[in-house]
């Protein structure tokens, strides 16, 4: 890391507040009620797990059978997450960064994309050429950025949603 990056990183760390776990748990409760209501109406089985990961509430619909709440490229999952965040916002008045998962989809994507980010970082290190990847959702891009950074390279996002994509940069 260069000195410039180090000095830029410091204020962000200093400003970061300790996550309010009680507030995040409350977010999870509101989200669980909203989702459970939907599962009941749609007659879908499934349980809801709640957790706090770092500074986010994490809510997972597990054991679900039938009804595709993930959708192609996770687009139904993203839509449901968006609505769930709004439902939380309506009750708490605070913008929510809650993360929703359905049937372990995000966990699987995270593993796949971490592998991809690591492999592409190696390829770019060898070739010395920047490499653009396929368009991805914000969640997916973050996973790739993290994997590339862990491999010691840098990456950036280009293009406009929903066609925004990661470019892995050579050193």
């Amino acid at each position, binding site marked *: 890391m260069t000195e410039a990056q180090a000095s830029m990183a410091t204020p962000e760390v200093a400003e970061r507040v300790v996550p309010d776990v009680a507030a995040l748990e409350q977010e999870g409760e509101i989200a669980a009620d909203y989702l459970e209501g*939907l599962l009941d109406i749609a007659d879908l089985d499934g349980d809801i797990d709640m957790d706090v990961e770092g500074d986010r509430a994490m809510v997972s619909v597990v054991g679900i059978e039938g*009804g595709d709440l993930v959708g192609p490229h996770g687009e139904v999952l993203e*839509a449901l997450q968006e*609505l769930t965040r709004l*439902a939380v916002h309506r009750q708490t008045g605070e913008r929510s960064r809650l993360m929703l998962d359905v049937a372990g989809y995000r966990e699987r994507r995270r593993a796949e994309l971490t592998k991809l980010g690591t492999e592409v970082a190696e390829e770019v290190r060898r070739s010395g050429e920047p490499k653009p990847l396929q368009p991805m959702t914000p969640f997916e891009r973050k996973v790739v950025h993290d994997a590339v950074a862990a491999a010691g390279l840098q990456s950036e996002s280009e293009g406009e949603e929903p066609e925004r994509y990661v470019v892995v940069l050579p050193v």
Partner: protein
Amino acid sequence: MLEEALEHLVKGIVEHPGDVRVHARRIRSGRVLEVRVHPDDLGKVIGRGGRTAKALRTVVGALAGGRYVRVDLLDLTEAR
């Protein structure tokens, strides 16, 4: 089931859940779900750049199992 699911999704995100009405109609190409909300909530269910409306349509489409369902968002005072 779709009407009820849509009503639940919308009621959870608006300031006036008691004013949410969902009405289903048939059209030749499928179904239309008309959602009426309090005038102050219309912006909320549409969202910035139509983002929330799109999310509602995506989830309803998934619950409909791929059958075509149109979702119209209106304010309560609008005549149809």
